[in-house]
């Protein structure tokens, strides 16, 4: 709510509804990043937990908040690193879509797809261009997913202990 077009959430919501194609572009392009991230983070979390349960040398209880936070952080870290190329492409598509705004709607042929954006990233910066911001992304998502999944498991265990 810094400054600019919409002065209230209701007004902003109205503006979003006025530009359905822009919303669809933002949503569909974010799927390239968010769906793999959602898949990888939970798979790593579950696999790490299962591995420790089945390892006789790992004596600690894995159903504790710190252990689950560590598994979640690992999931968030790996998920964030693997999906950084998708994040670079998604961010470019969304930024371009916002900059073009209505012009994109008017000119139906102006929209760029993920493949075109990926190719332009490759031409501009080479393979390293897909990993711009990888460290800040990993440093953000590792604790975020660690906290999220450990709290989730602990809350469910608490509910179970309370007979729910």
């Amino acid at each position, binding site marked *: *709510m*810094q400054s*600019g*077009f*919409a002065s209230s*959430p209701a007004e*902003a*919501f109205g*503006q*979003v509804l006025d530009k359905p194609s*822009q*919303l669809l572009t*933002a*949503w569909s392009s*974010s*799927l390239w990043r*968010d*769906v*793999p*991230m*959602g*898949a*990888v*983070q*939970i*798979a790593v979390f*579950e*696999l790490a937990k*299962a591995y420790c*349960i089945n390892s006789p040398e790992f004596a600690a*209880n894995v*159903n504790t908040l710190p252990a689950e936070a560590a598994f979640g952080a690992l999931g968030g870290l790996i998920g964030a690193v693997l999906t950084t190329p998708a994040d670079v492409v998604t961010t470019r598509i969304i930024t371009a879509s*916002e900059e073009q705004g209505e012009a994109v709607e008017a000119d139906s042929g102006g929209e760029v797809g993920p493949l075109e954006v990926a190719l332009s990233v490759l031409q501009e910066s080479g393979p390293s261009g897909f990993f711009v911001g990888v460290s*800040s992304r990993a440093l*953000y998502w590792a*604790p*975020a*997913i660690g*906290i*999220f*999944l450990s*709290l*989730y498991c602990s*809350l*469910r*265990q608490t*509910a*179970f202990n309370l007979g*729910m």
Partner: protein
Amino acid sequence: MKRRLASEPNDYNSSASFDELQSLELRFELQTNRRKSAIALARQLREREQLLAGLKAQPLPIVYGAAALASVGSTLVMHPVDTFKTLQITAASAAEAEAKAAAAKPSKRKSASEPAPLGKPPFALPPLHELYVGLLPNLVKEAPSSALYLGIYELVRSGLMAPGAPFETAPLLAYLVAGAAGEFVGSVIRAPVRAVQLEEKL
């Protein structure tokens, strides 16, 4: 054997019987420890099985509620970090634009020998309450979509890993597919709220 050794006048510490007794005691100790750890492991496994069965039988509102609350907790911790990152990027972009504008107008400098204006001091950490600006819209964006993410994940995963189901013996695939399905459904709620947030920030 102990009684026999006690009545013996010789120093039994150096006798063969003593060595035999020592090795018997050691073996007994080892067996006891092994039994103790086996009992502890069996108890742990039983408790874990009970917990897993209980969690599996938990009603869906508990699953969705736990995921939503967990998301609130995570957002409360990470929101200031996100805000700080955004402020840093905005400040860096502004400084860059300022520097470009200054470079484009060299005539404004009184003389060529005058040094170029120095950059702004390093970005300072704002007060905590400023870092929490925009928390409510972020919670509205994250909590329902995270609840859907994990709720759908649990549902799809248990379906895929049920006896006779396609991924019964391939847990990794089940986790990946279920996670992807959960995130896909969650994104349906997250995307419009994210778009509204962007409209307000523009």
